């Protein structure tokens, strides 16, 4: 059991929680995530470690389905059934040079720790932060602090530039030398970024959000076509080369359990009514 020690709403439906897990906090490296089992009959879901302190790990998550909604309902002092980790590869400690970090939606929760890490490794960072609309723009201040330049795009134009992150990226790529693009967000966005940088041969890493169960490389749920074969995202990723990912295998796999997820959600809504 892992105690929820703090909870804060950072945007509509998006929470930042602190959970007591000193052993995970100590072992954590940027890029790692944890597997959370909210309750005894729950599902194992992967969530990025946003930050840590001595005693706790911090997690930022968006309520999208049953598990994340259940987590969202938990109160300070409540116990989370299980948290395993940290797992996943640590992000390389490397000076790439000029880095464009793209964060879409709740992907910002993963972009913050990776951005801080890249900054600490001496990289020059431009950030493109995308959201549907103004109230969903996450961690502007944190990302501002570590970047040379921060571009905000919103789909509806309510804040920053109206448009998609790829529009902003296109412009940067035509004007500047870029050594690394790191894209974190919805799979369609990461695919679009990879398609844009592939012909330009700009190194592109993406943070894959495959559906996971074990998080330790033994179930194969998170597998995705890669190069000429298959990789397990949980142990070989989550950051992988966007040009090697077979997006045609990833995208359908993300919606594999659509019907079941809808059942879970409707039952939850009925319960809380």
């Amino acid at each position, binding site marked *: 059991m892992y105690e929820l020690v703090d909870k804060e709403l950072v945007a509509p439906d998006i929470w930042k929680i602190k959970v007591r897990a000193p052993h*995970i906090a100590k072992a954590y490296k940027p890029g790692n995530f944890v597997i959370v089992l909210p309750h005894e009959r729950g599902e194992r879901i992967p969530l990025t470690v946003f930050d840590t302190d001595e005693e706790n790990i911090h997690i930022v998550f968006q309520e999208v389905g049953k598990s994340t909604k259940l987590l969202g309902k938990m109160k300070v002092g409540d116990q989370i059934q299980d948290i395993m980790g940290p797992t996943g590869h640590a992000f390389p400690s490397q000076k790439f040079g000029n880095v464009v970090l793209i964060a879409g939606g709740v992907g910002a929760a993963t972009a913050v720790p990776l951005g801080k890490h890249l900054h600490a490794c001496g990289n020059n960072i431009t950030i493109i932060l995308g959201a549907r609309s103004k109230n969903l723009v996450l961690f502007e201040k944190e990302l501002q602090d570590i970047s040379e330049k921060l571009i905000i795009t919103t789909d509806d134009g309510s804040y920053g530039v109206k448009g998609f992150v790829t529009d902003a990226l296109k412009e940067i790529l035509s004007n500047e030398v870029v050594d690394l693009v790191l894209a974190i967000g919805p799979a369609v966005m990461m695919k679009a970024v990879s398609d844009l940088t592939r012909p330009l041969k700009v190194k592109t890493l993406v943070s894959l959000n495959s559906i996971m169960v074990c998080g330790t490389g033994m179930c194969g749920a998170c597998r995705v076509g890669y190069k000429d074969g298959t990789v397990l995202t949980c142990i070989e990723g989550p950051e992988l080369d966007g040009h090697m990912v077979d997006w045609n295998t990833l995208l*359908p796999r993300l919606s594999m359990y659509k019907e079941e997820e809808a059942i879970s959600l409707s039952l939850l809504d009925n319960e809380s009514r």
Partner: protein
Amino acid sequence: MPLKDRIPMPEQDPKLRITNFDEVALGYTEEQALMEASRCLQCPNPTCIQGCPVNIDIKAFIGLIQEGKFTEGYYKIKEKNNFPAMTGRVCPQETQCEASCVLAKMGKPIAIGRLERFLADHEMYKPQQIETEKKNHIPVACVGTGPASLAAAANLAKKGYEVHLFEALHLPGGVLSYGIPEFRLPKKIVNHEIMLLSDLGVFIHTDVIVGKTYTLQQLRREFKSIFLGTGAGAPLLLGVPGENLNGIFTANEFLIRVNLMKAYRFPEFDTPIKKGKEVVVVGAGNVAMDAARTARRLGANVTIVYRRSRAEMPSRAEEVQHAEEEGIHMKLLTNPVAFHGKDGWVQSVEVVSMQLGSPDERGRRKPIPIEGSNYEIYCDQVIVAIGTTPNPILKYSTPELLLTPHGNIVVDEQYQTNIPGVFAGGDIVTGSATVIEALGAGKKAAIYIDKFIKGA
């Protein structure tokens, strides 16, 4: 006097059992156990004992059943094996103890496994009388909680050590918990036999990935010795086109969802599983049979596809028989070459017919594709059960650990790895094997760990 037949095991009717996940084999009654035990000749030179990888004194425990001394019989088994309720159910007895019984020649060996299970079920929930040496407060760690680590832990705890088990998943048991289905090995029994271990003072830490949460180097600083029983849990894939389509599962994922996460009780449990209508299972080992029988219970029409013939099927004979009784079809000498799909979902398996060629180095006849014999089997779900390999996590963080080219840990005859004080056993050393072999390895390693610590 003609040799009496083995007392059959009462079983759930196949028509009924494919509608539930309850145990198939129901266990002997006292009367049946006494009758079966009475067939044992109490041989002066009992050959059965050598057939058991941990050399249980089979003659003695069956003799005690004959006298109605069930408690004594149970502790006779426990001298050698701490987990009889599990081994009595899942050991491949027909190739081990029972194959070595003198009566096997007549085709009617004593049902040793069933008797072992009978004693365990009869006694396991009673207060346990186990002699342990005085606690010495020397900390020892076991990594993984499958049978290898459980046996190592039990034996070290009995010698007085302070044993800590570390498991990556949220529940202990390894394959016993996540792999072997409820209808063959009820989780209640696994949990109970593990609980008896906690009663010996063993600490179980779940959610800990050794190599990530703690490195092996860190554990070495805290513990006098370490046993690695991490199993061979990483799934193998066929490597043919279309394998990542929706609806195609590794047996591990399918079984973990259903067994460990209880997806067969979705939505009461949150983890979902796809329920196929036409399911193809690739492979013919224990794992394939378990996956096929699980899919059947979820309501599917199931076909097993295997590239060799019946004689080469690696699964236990009893499992194949149970599968066939449950209406599972077998397509032998048939091998998948591609998966075809629509809108991201699998629709068919393209297979090729095979014929058996000349025997390989191990004497198994090699399957050869018959050119031009390709055809498609229509399905909406596929489960790939063609084997597993060692998990690479420990390797990534411990490059100094000596491995075989296949990724198995190399140990000497005392189960010690190339790192002093670090021992290993079970599937991580041998590759996929059996529960009792893993138990045996853990138990023997415990002896050498004790020697290592006392000698140091």
